[in-house]
């Protein structure tokens, strides 16, 4: 028997594709064309494993029609809201993701959003790049100081804890909201809030680092925004679905929220046009994990999981 067949839905970093081709009969996507449900089903034919990405939709309908040969579904992401895991499990298909390896890169993007929005980085960028800078004045582009400010982290998982470590080095005081309180060695002095009210009141800067899904859908709504200190900063590098966009856009206009930064959007790559019209927001195109170091590590971890399942072992990165 030859190598097992692996269908890779999108183009992956060179080192990852090289390893996939070494160990599998790999069906790659050199053009990086988006894959429809029909494409996915056609290209999975006879495959033992599928390595997909967050842009692919593997809902119950698609999973039900996957060929019998498919034993494992690896996703090139931490999040797996694009996969109906229960439907996969019902068919005996294992799902693996890429936890841990992108925590640091995503936390970096979170800190970038905090500092760049507080300090009005992109506004300054646009002024200088357009050749419209007419000189220094003591009141030009005054932002908000990051050091010494209170940061509220919503969702204190691996990424949230990395953000806490980085923010601590900026002299920020870290508060957090989580399903449960962390052990002291993970908490590292951050202040736990058992309910939203006190958490929001403390959050001069609010960072969303919780998973998507129904449990957090539109968590940041008008009522919660109203509980933030006036002029608060909001950043989101987790999932766009956590935010009620019209409510936040209204708050950015009223000044209840002073500025904001996003790497993710509800309905991306379409973005609520209300954000595009604002100067006081930093907008990045969902590239939180987009470093060469991180993307290689993600691909290798997804392949580790696929290797393990096909060898009859339980992978460390199995989604349960």
């Amino acid at each position, binding site marked *: 028997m030859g190598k097992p067949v692996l269908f890779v839905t999108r*183009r*992956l*970093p*060179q080192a990852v594709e090289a390893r996939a081709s070494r160990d599998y009969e790999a069906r790659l996507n050199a053009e990086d064309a988006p894959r429809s449900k029909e494409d996915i089903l056609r290209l999975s034919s006879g495959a033992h494993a599928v390595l997909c990405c967050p842009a692919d939709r593997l809902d119950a309908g698609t999973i039900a029609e996957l060929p019998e040969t498919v034993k494992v579904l690896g996703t090139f992401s931490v999040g797996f809201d694009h996969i109906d895991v229960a439907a996969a499990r019902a068919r005996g298909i294992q799902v693996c993701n890429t936890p841990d390896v992108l925590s640091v890169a995503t936390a970096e993007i979170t800190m970038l959003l905090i500092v760049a929005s507080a300090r009005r*980085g992109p506004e300054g960028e646009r002024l200088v790049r357009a050749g419209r800078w007419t000189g220094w004045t003591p009141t030009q582009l*005054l932002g908000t*100081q990051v050091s010494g400010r209170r940061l509220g982290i919503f969702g204190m998982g691996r990424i949230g804890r990395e953000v806490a470590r*980085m923010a601590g080095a900026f002299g920020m005081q870290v508060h957090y909201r989580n399903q449960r309180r962390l052990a002291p060695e993970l908490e590292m002095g951050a202040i736990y809030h058992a309910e939203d009210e006190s958490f929001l009141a403390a959050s001069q800067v609010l960072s969303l680092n919780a998973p998507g899904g129904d449990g957090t859908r539109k968590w940041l709504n008008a009522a919660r925004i109203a509980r933030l200190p006036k002029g608060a900063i909001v950043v989101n590098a987790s999932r766009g679905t956590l935010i009620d966009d019209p409510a936040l856009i209204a708050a950015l206009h009223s000044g209840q929220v002073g500025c904001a930064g996003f790497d993710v959007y509800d309905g991306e790559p379409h973005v609520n046009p209300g954000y595009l019209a604002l100067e006081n927001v930093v907008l990045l195109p969902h590239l939180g994990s987009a470093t060469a170091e991180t993307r290689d590590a993600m691909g290798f971890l997804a392949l580790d999981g696929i290797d393990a399942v096909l060898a009859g072992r339980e992978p460390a990165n199995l989604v349960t």
Partner: protein
Amino acid sequence: MRGSPDRLGDASAPLVMPQGYGHHSGNDHRGETHMKPQLVVAPLIPPAVFERARATFETYFAEGNVEAALTAVEKLQAAGLFITSSVKLTAEVIARLPSCLKVAATCSVGFDHIDVAAAKARGLIVTNTPEVLTDCTADLAFMLILNACRRAHEYEAIMRSGWRKSFGMGEMLGTRASGKTLGIVGFGRIGRAVAQRARGFGMRVLYHDTKRIPDELVHGAEHFTDLRAMLPHCQILSLHAPGGPANDRMMNAETFSLLPSGAIFVNAARGALVDEDALIAALTSGHLAGAGLDVYRSEPAFDLRLADLPNIFLVPHMGSATVETRNAMGFRALDNLEAVCAGRPAIDPLWS
């Protein structure tokens, strides 16, 4: 600039200049005016600083007009002058200062805009505002590091032009800042505050400084007496050295070439430290993966070729541009003016 759309952070008044701007804003009660020293404020200043200046001094606000400020010093027989780096105290200007003027307080740390020799010869006391902007400037330098590593200019431009396209997992990749080796040139207060932030990102910190830094301030950073010996180790390089002839163009074609390929370069110190032709060449060839600049050899008329480069993040000299810091700087400048006008020694004299 009055009523400009500048947005202030939370808990700050909107930037509408209070009444009295551009006027001699003395107190109406004659008895009190005699108690207050005379002050001329040359530049625009934040509202909170304006209010305190007006409460403490008999003050003329010149709204950025330097000639009007000089005329007002003469007319008011003012002892104090409040300036910033946008107000140049050249030898020629210093020669024209009326003899009544005792002290000029610059609302800045740097003082390259002041002819120190001419000021000394004239017997003028000059003060600056050290310490109060350390964290703020370090925050901005680190913002430049993150923005340059993670290609923020290109990412923002993608968004502002509508996005609509998802990227392949190997496309538009940046450099992860965490875990890298950071070289800091100039390990004074700001350089050390940048090192403190870098530790939160698991970076190895190297530094070059001509001065010996006390051990208790070093926190594990590795010292290089020779800049050239340090550069080959620096995946990220951040400048925090003062300006002046000794450091002019310390980063040039030769020193940039000593950095490892794919390095990130950041300057939030002084534009004169950099040979911008060499910087542009290194960014164009890809020897440098990215750069972030807050300062330029010529400001605000900077070299427009920089604005043609995608792999650079450019901001307009805003290292200390937060409401909190600008207020603190303004208050510190007023502290100095108050001290000298009351016959006490200056708190932050540039020389003694």
